[in-house]
Structures are given as structure tokens and as C-alpha cells.
């Protein structure tokens, strides 16, 4: 019996030559909190490969007797990719989810929002004041920018995820400081109320939040709890009268911390575990009003970028929170936090695709006009390579953003890996694109007045948190596939014929990727979660693979619809796929090679030495 409930196509079975000798091997896979988005993505996907117990919210140290839950057939492309399978339902064709009315409405919204950011908002001023100008904040509130996804009957604009993405793209194109102020407020700050709030909570809080009369902030991180969010120490205890929870603790790095009136706060509560009869700490989410008393905040943190966004510490001292203000279930706070972050994450890809668009325009403008050695610099190969890479990175990010928002709007609940991929990809791409733009522009690129975003790009959203659930399940060995064996996997019929070569690269990459994942799981078993050198390469490959498929989908659509830009997009797509395929194959090869294993060992040793020495170890070449 293979991988429990994973469905296997007959072709797959034949190709894998499942051998009965390998069946029945079972291993328990223990989960551990993962360190960052990359690892989160790969470990989350690793879960999917194995039968898993229903993901719990407790920190995982138990290896409970496996209660094998039915693993639901996942529609997520990424999840299936880790199994070496193709489920094209969410990626082909490229989603087109808006009806005529929604499209028309969005088309009307784009010009005034663009105009506002071009003419009224002053990013340089906001940056030097280290706050968004008061008049700009007022105008943004009047404009309705603070309640874009709040339903219309509660005073908001009622946008879908795709519509929201399109507007956030404009903000990202002009001023990420404003982008974070808006995002911290609505993308995460009060998103919990939208997602899991009771009707009474929604009616009470959303109208004022939508108009910006009150601002919101998301309070999870603490000095000792960043990636390891489940370890937070802020405490909520039920008051003797039973009508309030008393909140005590401190949160750090809170965007809008100094401005907000409404806080979504996560705190631990000791609760009786029914099964064991023991008291356990569980996390609960609360809606906390500053007006409850006991809520204070620190001065604005001095940041290197997005200075206009307010970041501050927030302290809760004996804050009485009415029991009606529990958000979601008592003890279910971790799930609420995950839901909020998963739901808002695609916004980063959308905003940053706008940022890159703006930055590329600057670079192109410079390259098209600057003359050196008698020619415009855009005629030189080095510049051309930079511009081409920047363009591809923007194309991929934009494609991811709208594919995911399209999936979400179609009702998918299965998009979390893709959202995580899009967030890392967008952040890293945006840094690279901006850096390359500075390079293209030469000295001017480094000047504040060059109108660049410079270091104001930040990975603004928290890194997603380690899943604290248990992985339990079976893994069986599969016969290794030799290269060249057909698995029956194909993207034919999904990908436009003109892109079939790139489509084949994607299929081959998926096949190799799937084998590599299994090999790694076989080799390391449950300890894979500690093998971050390996996980990083697996995650990088996953990201590259999803990126390939996303651009294949988008370019296929442009070709089928006969867009004027279709041939250009075809080139973008093919070039991306060739390079991504090479990177994936290199990662696959590295993971099999013993010299890479040696490299990992060496890096570990180097790191240990440097840590022990408190700095570099080798003495100065000059001897002093």
C-alpha cells in the first residue's frame, strides 16, 4: 500500500513500478516549527505527501498514535507537485474571475486611485517626515482606501481579492510606506474580524474601520517569539467575575502600533485539555480596544526604509477585554492567526509587482536616454540582460499575484503554499529588480531624489509561522525512476502549442522534483525537518516550478486570445522556463551529490567556528 490515501493514476503506478517489497513501511514523521517561509512551504507540502493527522494547534512534541485522517484530495498545484503529480485545475487556464460588472467597476476605480498617488501623495515627504502626511491620510480615508474589502453594507468598498490586488498594485507602484500603513490596517489588522468575526463584532467594528475613523493593528510578535509564534507569552486570564479576560504582555514590531485604536491581539491561556485532564497553554485571539485602558505604545521605531509606516511596541497592562471580544474560538487563536496571514499574503505579491513596474519604467527611461561611449546604454548587452531579467521577474510576480487572487475569488481554500511562494518570490524579486535599477542608473540611482524606492522595500509581512501540527503517516519506498521513463504526466491540452517545449520542461522538472522529494523523505525520514540546507533547495525548486507554470498559463492565455503582446510574453515565458529548469535540475543534482553533502557539512562547520569566535576567525593577512 502506497502513500495512504494519495490517489495514483494508473500511468503513475506503472511508471513507478511499485514493488510489493517496499510496501507497508511506515514511519512517523514528527513536526517541528519551521524557521521561515521557504521552510514553511516545503514542510507544509511535505505534510501533504504523507497521510496526516488533522493539524492540531498545540506545539508538536507528541508522537501521538496516528489517527489517520482521510487526506482530502487537494486541488492545489503546489501540493500535488510535491507528490510528483500534476493537478492543473487551479493553474490552467489562467483564471479570469471577474464578471462584467466587477471588471467595469474596477476599471472606474483605477484612474482616480492612480491620479491620487501621482498627484497628491508625496512619498519623499512621507519618508522625511517619517509619517504619512496628515492631509494625505485624510484624503485616503475619504477615498475609501481603508475599507477596500469591507462589505458595502458595512461602509466599505466590498472589493474581491482580485480587485483589491489591482488597487494595492497602484499603491505599491508609488509608496510602500503608505502601502504598509493600509496593509497593516486591513490586510491583517482587522482581517480577523472579516474572516471569523461574529455578526455582532462585524457590525460593531467594521464601519469605523472602513472609513479609517479607527485604525487597526495585528499584534502577534514578541521579543522572544518571532518565527516561533506558538511560543508567545502574552497572557489572558479570566477575571473572577467571568465577564472579562485580563490581558498582560508586550508586543514588538507592530505596524500602526502607535496609531491604532483596534488591535487583534494573540495571547496564551491556560486551558483544560479534555483528553489528558491536564492544563495546557492555548492561544486565543482577541479584539482589543485602546479605550479599554491599559494599552500603551512605545515611540516609532527608526527604520531603514518604509519610514512613513509607523512601527512600535505595544504594551498591555491588566487590560480588561470583554469575553464578547474573543475572535473565533477560545483556544483557537493559532488557527485564526494562520487564516489571517494566509488570506492577506497575496497582497504583497500584488503590491510588489506594482513596485517593480514603476522601478522598471525608471530604469528603461534612463537606459533609453543615457549615452556613453557614443551609444545609448540600452544597446549594450549587460544592460539588456539586466532589463530582461527585471522584466521577467516582474512578469512572474504579477502572474502569481493574479493567479492566486483568482483562485481565492473562485472559492479555493487550497492556496496557502502558492501564497507563501508568491510572497517570498515577490520580496526577493523586488529587491533584485530595484538593485538592478540602481545599477542601470549608475550614481543617480543611489540618490534619494532619483525617485527610487531603494531600501523601502521590505519583507513587510511576517514570515509565516511553523506549523505546530503533527505529521504522521506512512511512507513507502518507491522504485527509483530512471531518466527517460514516461510517467504519463503531461501539460498538453493546457499549455498553448507554441509553448509546448517549455511545457515539457515543466513536466520534466515536476517529475524530477517529485522523485527528489521522495528520495529526501526516504533518506532523512522525520529528521528532514531539521535539514534546512536540503529544505532550502527543495523550496527554491518548488518556487521556480510554480513560477514556470504560472507564466506558462498566462502566456498561453495571451497567445490564445491573440493579444498584441503575446509574442513578447512568449519570449518572457520561454526564457524564464529555460533558466528555471536549469536551476531546478541543478538543485535536484546537488541534492543527490555527495560533494554537496560535503558542502553542507563544511558550511555548518564554518558557521559554528564563526559563532564560537564571535566573528571572523581567520587572522588578518597583515597580521594586525
Amino acid at each position: 500500500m502506497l502513500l495512504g490515501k494519495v490517489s495514483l493514476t494508473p500511468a503513475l503506478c506503472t511508471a513507478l513500478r511499485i514493488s510489493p517489497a517496499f510496501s507497508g513501511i511506515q514511519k512517523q514523521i514528527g513536526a517541528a516549527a519551521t524557521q521561515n517561509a521557504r521552510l514553511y512551504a516545503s514542510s507544509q507540502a511535505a505534510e501533504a505527501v504523507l497521510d496526516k493527522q488533522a493539524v492540531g494547534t498545540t506545539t508538536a512534541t507528541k508522537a501521538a498514535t496516528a489517527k489517520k485522517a482521510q487526506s482530502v484530495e487537494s486541488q492545489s498545484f503546489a501540493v500535488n507537485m510535491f507528490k510528483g503529480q500534476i493537478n492543473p485545475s487551479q493553474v490552467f487556464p489562467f483564471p479570469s474571475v471577474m464578471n462584467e460588472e466587477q471588471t467595469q467597476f474596477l476599471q472606474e476605480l483605477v484612474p482616480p486611485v492612480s491620479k491620487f498617488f501621482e498627484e497628491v501623495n508625496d512619498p519623499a515627504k512621507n519618508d522625511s517626515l517619517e509619517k504619512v502626511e496628515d492631509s494625505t491620510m485624510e484624503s485616503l480615508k475619504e477615498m475609501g482606501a481603508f475599507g477596500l474589502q469591507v462589505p458595502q453594507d458595512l461602509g466599505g468598498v466590498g472589493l474581491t481579492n482580485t480587485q483589491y490586488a489591482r488597487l494595492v498594485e497602484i499603491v505599491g507602484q508609488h509608496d510602500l510606506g503608505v502601502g504598509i500603513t493600509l496593509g497593516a490596517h486591513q490586510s491583517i489588522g482587522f482581517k480577523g474580524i472579516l474572516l471569523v468575526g461574529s455578526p455582532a463584532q462585524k457590525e460593531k467594528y467594521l464601519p469605523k474601520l472602513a472609513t479609517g475613523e479607527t485604525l487597526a493593528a495585528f499584534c502577534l510578535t514578541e521579543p522572544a517569539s518571532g518565527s516561533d509564534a506558538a511560543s508567545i507569552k502574552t497572557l489572558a486570564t479570566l477575571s473572577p467575575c467571568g465577564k472579562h479576560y485580563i490581558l498582560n504582555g508586550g508586543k514588538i514590531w507592530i505596524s500602526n502600533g502607535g496609531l491604532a485604536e483596534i488591535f487583534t491581539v494573540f495571547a496564551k491561556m491556560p486551558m483544560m485539555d479534555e483528553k489528558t485532564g491536564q492544563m495546557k497553554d492555548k492561544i486565543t485571539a482577541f479584539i482589543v480596544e485602546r479605550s479599554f485602558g491599559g494599552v500603551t505604545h512605545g515611540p516609532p521605531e527608526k527604520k531603514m526604509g518604509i519610514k512613513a509606516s509607523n512601527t512600535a511596541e505595544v504594551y498591555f497592562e491588566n487590560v480588561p477585554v470583554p469575553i464578547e471580544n474573543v475572535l473565533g474560538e477560545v483556544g483557537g487563536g493559532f488557527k485564526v492567526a494562520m487564516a489571517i496571514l494566509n488570506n492577506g499574503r497575496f497582497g504583497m505579491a500584488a503590491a510588489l509587482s506594482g513596485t517593480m513596474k514603476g522601478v522598471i519604467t525608471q530604469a528603461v527611461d534612463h537606459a533609453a536616454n543615457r549615452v556613453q561611449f557614443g551609444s545609448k546604454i540600452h544597446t549594450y548587452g549587460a544592460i539588456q540582460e539586466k532589463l530582461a531579467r527585471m522584466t521577467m521577474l516582474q512578469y512572474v510576480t504579477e502572474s502569481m499575484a493574479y493567479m492566486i487572487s483568482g483562485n481565492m475569488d473562485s472559492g479555493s481554500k487550497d492556496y496557502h503554499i502558492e501564497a507563501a511562494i508568491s510572497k517570498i518570490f515577490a520580496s526577493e524579486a523586488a529587491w533584485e529588480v530595484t538593485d538592478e535599477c540602481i545599477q542601470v542608473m549608475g550614481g543617480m540611482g543611489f540618490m534619494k531624489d532619483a525617485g527610487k524606492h531603494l531600501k523601502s522595500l521590505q519583507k513587510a509581512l511576517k514570515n509565516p509561522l511553523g506549523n505546530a501540527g503533527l505529521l504522521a503517516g506512512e511512507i513507502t519506498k518507491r522504485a527509483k525512476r530512471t531518466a527517460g521513463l514516461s510517467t504519463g504526466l503531461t501539460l498538453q491540452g493546457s499549455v498553448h502549442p507554441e509553448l509546448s517545449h517549455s511545457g515539457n520542461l515543466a513536466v520534466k522538472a515536476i517529475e524530477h522534483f517529485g522523485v527528489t522529494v521522495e528520495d529526501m523523505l526516504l533518506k532523512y525520514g522525520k529528521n528532514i525537518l531539521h535539514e534546512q540546507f536540503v529544505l532550502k533547495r527543495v523550496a527554491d525548486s518548488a518556487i521556480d516550478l510554480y513560477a514556470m507554470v504560472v507564466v506558462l498559463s498566462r502566456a498561453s492565455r495571451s497567445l490564445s486570445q491573440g493579444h498584441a503582446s503575446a509574442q513578447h510574453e512568449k519570449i518572457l515565458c520561454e526564457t524564464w522556463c529555460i533558466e528555471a529548469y536549469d536551476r531546478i535540475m541543478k538543485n535536484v543534482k546537488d541534492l543527490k551529490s555527495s560533494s554537496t553533502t560535503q558542502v553542507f557539512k563544511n558550511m555548518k562547520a564554518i558557521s559554528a567556528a564563526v559563532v564560537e569566535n564571535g566573528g571572523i576567525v581567520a587572522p588578518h593577512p597583515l597580521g594586525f
Partner: protein
Amino acid sequence: MSRVLVGVKRVIDYAVKIRVKPDHSGVVTDGVKHSMNPFCEIAVEEAVKLKEKKFIKEVVAVSCGPTQVTETIRTALAMGCDRGIHVEVSGKDYEAMGPLQISKIFAALAKKEEASLVILGKQAIDDDCNQTGQMTAALLDWPQGTFASEVTIDGEKVKVVREIDGGLETIKISMPAVLTADLRLNTPRYATLPNIMKAKKKKIANMKPADLGVDEPPTRLAGVKVETVDDLVAKLKANGTI
């Protein structure tokens, strides 16, 4: 004092780099960003301001052209106009249309809607004609306050400060009248998202020029080049122009 008619024209956005079509028959308009003529925005803003100050009850936004002009009417509605009128003209007729045609349509509408004021932008940024306001007033035999940089309602009269070559001129005209907006008349408001949402519920009526008794635009005749001024004068005398 009840109703104001505001004309809004959909033009290529001022920030766009204009490109000439390969066959030199015109400029590229397909896929190019269009928006409301900036002077029309100022006209709408003035009308909405008058309504907010309670001098008038209703502002009606009017545009002539193909289906796309409804976007421009919607922007006017989002800025505060109460309803819209879309006079449908498309294809070759639209390309041949000029100020004379438009002003006939506006004159007919002003009478039909019993407007007290017709406010237009002083000129459009695509053709820069600066004729429609003046022609409309002439067809209606109404007073005109053109190049307005300040408008004040004073009972049954309108005080208009006009920007002219020599400086500023202040006139007082009776209503009903035609005004054309100049740059410094006001700063148009930004359409807010809630207002755009409200605008979706406002009505836009559809009609054709024929419904207003206005005929097809005449086919444009080819021009003739002449060598000298004397030739020009002779030709003009010959066809009865002078």
C-alpha cells in the same frame, strides 16, 4: 434656478505620448489611455460646487460619442453630477464630428432640459478648438461668459471674471447663459471610491442626435492649397465666403 448642463469630452489622457498612425490618417487611439478633458473636469467641479451651495438643484452631465464615453459620464457622476445623458455617435460620424455639431446637440438639450446654465470646458486638449461654448450660446441666443476664472451667482445674474489677453475682465450676464471654464476656476475634486460606488446607481439616458433634431455632420470637404495670398482672396470671393 434648477438645472445645469455640463459637457464632458473623452480625450486621450494628457500624459500619454501621442503616436501617429502608420497610414498618417490620424493618431493611435486603440488601447491608449483616455480620460475626461481637464477643462471639462473643472466645469463639472464648478457645477457641483454650485449645487453644494444650493444655487441649483440638479447637474446633468452630457457627452457625445461612442459607447466608451459612458466611462467619462460615470466619472462626472462620481464627482457629484446627478444624472447623465449619452448622445450616441460612433464610427465615421464620430470622427467627422466637430464643434458645430456638438453645439447644435447641446443647444437642443439645453432647451429640452430647461437648463439655466450650460457649463463647458473652454477647449478640448485634443483639437483645441475653443468653439463649442461660443457656438452653443449663439445658437441659443444666450449670453456667454467664456474663459471663466471666477463665477458668482447674484440673483438672476451671473458675475463672471474672464481671463483675457489683456488681463482680467469682469462681466455680469443674465441667465440662462453659457459659461466655459478656464484653468484657474477651481481645483477638481478626486472621485472617491464610495462616490464611484454611489454613481453606479445614477441613471444615464441614451439618445441619438436625430432624437434632438440634429442632422448628420456634413461630409468634410477636401481642402485646396493655393500659391499666393491673392489666389486665396480670389478663391474666397469665388465661393462667396467674402
